[in-house]
């Protein structure tokens, strides 16, 4: 292959949760600009395998930008320089000869499992605390049985784009999970199906968020900039208003 890229990679290596970890430098050459970022790491891992070295552990699943599994801090940008997921980021977004620093999401609520893999179960526990609606299973109800005004439907759909990747937490100077939580609160709160549990939901989710050790929101907006789905910061405003209403009208 001609016209490939040569890159210097500084990658976080950490054997396990209790290992201190360190940045290690690797060189890769002849990387196609059309490769995805994860394919570039696959190439590096094959080289490491061939040399008998431990390959770099990183998360990925669908590689289509919809599952939320992948996520790397790339030279200080969550998911790299483009507004997309790490798997949908291509090497053409980088310059030949560039040095790229690759780190895991940094938050005490997201402990490192190995190398670039973090445990995001804290998000699952926040969802379990209130990010759901209770419905009877069975055949799907008639689609037009519960009308939804178009602006509310649009806003719910926009918030529902959140894939729970954790980039908002990774980019936040406070390591807060408010954009994630705001997306869930807005998604369910705009729809009739979300109403019965609306006030309980916000109180329980926020309590779980704080118990997990996430930081507090200071509205810097770094989350929205990092979000691969472009979830707007106004969902946090909705969360705040719902929380205040729940605390004052429903006794918390």
């Amino acid at each position, binding site marked *: 292959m001609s016209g490939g890229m040569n890159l210097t990679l500084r990658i976080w290596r950490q054997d396990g949760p209790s290992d201190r970890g360190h940045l290690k430098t690797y060189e890769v050459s002849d990387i196609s600009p059309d490769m995805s970022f994860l394919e570039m790491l696959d190439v590096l891992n094959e080289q490491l395998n061939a040399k008998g070295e431990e390959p770099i552990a990183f998360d990925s699943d669908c590689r289509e930008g919809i599952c939320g599994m992948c996520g790397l801090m790339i030279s*200080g940008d969550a998911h790299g320089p483009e507004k997309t997921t790490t798997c949908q980021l291509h090497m053409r977004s980088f310059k030949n000869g560039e040095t790229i620093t690759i780190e895991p999401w940094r*938050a005490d609520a997201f402990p490192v499992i190995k190398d670039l893999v973090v445990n995001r179960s804290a998000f699952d526990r926040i969802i379990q605390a209130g990010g759901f609606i209770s419905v009877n299973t069975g055949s799907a109800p008639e689609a037009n049985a519960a009308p939804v005004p178009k602006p509310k439907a649009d806003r719910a759909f926009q918030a529902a784009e959140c894939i729970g990747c954790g980039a908002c937490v990774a*980019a936040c100077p406070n390591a*807060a999970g408010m954009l994630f939580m705001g997306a869930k609160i807005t998604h369910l709160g705009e729809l009739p199906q979300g109403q019965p549990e609306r006030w309980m939901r916000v109180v329980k989710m926020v309590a779980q968020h704080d118990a997990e050790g*996430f930081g507090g929101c200071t509205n810097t907006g770094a989350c929205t900039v990092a979000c691969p789905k472009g979830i707007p910061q106004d969902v946090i405003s*909705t969360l*705040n208003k719902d929380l205040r209403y729940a605390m004052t009208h429903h006794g918390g």
Partner: protein
Amino acid sequence: MAVTGLFFVFYVLLHMYGNLKVLAGPEAFDGYAHHLRTFGEPMLPYEGLLWIIRVLLVLSLIGHAYSAFTLWSRAGSARRTKYAALKTASSSKTMRWGGVFLLLFLTWHLIHFTIVKPAVNSGVASDTIHSSPYAMVVASFQLWWMVIFYVLALAALGLHLSHGVFSAQQTLGWTQTAAGYRRAKAIGHLVAGLVTIGFAIPPLSILFGLVK
């Protein structure tokens, strides 16, 4: 954070209005200062309103600083391992260290114009300063280094407000649409600009001899 902050914004706008009275001359300015003390009499005692506002300001300051330091400490323990490559939003640093600077400035500002009223300008007698607020202000801002210090504090206040006024609206849940969000950002910049310029006019006018 939001409620106490908005109270400060309300106070700062009133304060700015009072300061601009300096342009109308010594009678207007000293008269305004006197009326602030007799405002509401006889329902309120002498300086009654002033003390109500002062107590509210002190309570707000305690609440504001307590919330700020709680958020600061939570942020520290929520990410104990830092990034090697850092591109973090600098606005949180500006808010925090800018806030600490404003607190230090506020301490000096209260000593300067309220509590001690030192004769910083050796050309004006201490008795004159204590008898006329107008004379005190003019004497202070005839000193170029004092003007520089106050303008620096105003720049810090402007930066603090441009984020803070938006942030308060976001916290109170007033920005739930894209239009509301843009409006909140615009109001933040507008209030910041208004306060910075409005407060900068009197000291600069005095320094350049437009007000004597």
